[in-house]
């Protein structure tokens, strides 16, 4: 099939360990989502439920960004240059949720 003769393509055999890890991460993501689904119906609305959801979302984000996007295995300086700017999001979140409460109070 390889029509280009300058490049001889050598296919390497799959690394079982690597593929198993991919499926393990997939299983974790699926299990956390199923658990979220369960919590949505079993636990009554409140601070506990909200914080449980947020923690589970961060766990899922950790696996997607760390393993699937491979960020966990990159150079430290690259990891930090992606993660540190996200602090701005935390600031915006706190500021605007607080602001929302104030708007509600004067509405």
């Amino acid at each position, binding site marked *: *099939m*390889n*029509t*280009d003769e300058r*490049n001889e*393509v*050598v*296919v*390497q*055999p*799959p690394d079982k360990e*690597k*593929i198993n890890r*991919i*499926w393990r*991460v*997939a299983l974790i*993501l*699926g299990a956390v*989502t199923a658990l*979220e*689904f369960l919590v*949505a*119906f079993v636990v009554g*609305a409140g601070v506990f*439920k*909200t914080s449980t*959801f*947020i923690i*589970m*979302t961060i766990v*899922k*984000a950790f696996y*997607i*960004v760390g*393993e*699937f*996007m491979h960020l966990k295995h*990159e*150079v430290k*300086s*690259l990891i930090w*240059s*992606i993660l540190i*700017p*996200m602090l*701005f*999001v935390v600031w*915006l*979140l706190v500021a*605007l*949720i607080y*602001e*929302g*409460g104030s*708007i*509600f109070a004067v*509405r």
Partner: protein
Amino acid sequence: MSTTATAVNNPGKSIWDGGQSPFKASYGKLMMWFFLLSDAFTFSGLLITYGLIRYSHPGYEGSPDAFTFSTEYWPIPEKVFEAVPFLHGVPLPLVFVGIMTFILILSSVTMVLAVEAGHRMDRKNVEKWMLWTIVGGLTFLGCQAWEWTHFINGSGGETLMKVFNGEKGVWETVSVMGAGLTANEYGPPDFAALFFFITGFHGTHVFSGVLLNFLIFYNTVTGVYDRRGHYEMVEKVGLYWHFVDLVWVFVFTFFYLI
């Protein structure tokens, strides 16, 4: 480790003095990362706006069983999103979005498998896994199209809603079916506007992701990457595709669960 190597080659120079890549990532991958960072800010802005507007409205205080739609308070999301295709009239809260989440996660998994096959120059497997990723993306888009249609057409019932009449400048009580940009049967007008904006912006990302995935698939089939000698494009587009999945994880939590 890299610093020791540099010190041996160029005494007195750090890895930041040029001639090598300190991040140990190619230009394209690095720029994809920074683009995704900026895109993450955009989505954060949208989701935080949802939080702001939601907390500026009163929440529903009564028991969940007695819940009715009203413009007076923010709706409980699981009372809004409880329809599943082919099961008309059966209340199955969050089941359909749950399925959509699983579809997107699975297509993310097939994408990693494609990237892994690319590392091994295994064209046949890249083709196979890219095709599954595209199928997953298209299925998700189809689900979203159904969900939007259902949301816009409504559950079949009419709700009396207080709607602001801009021409007369007064609030009127009118019967509303489904959802539009000015009024909806589920809650305050902002609820539907945010639904359209946030899931719409995410859906646009999925759509462009499917187009990019198709491009990668096409290039793989025609042997472009074999000739190039590496499958890095699969990796770069993979980063984008995982990001789309990541955003959905957040939309799922903050729009549908909380």
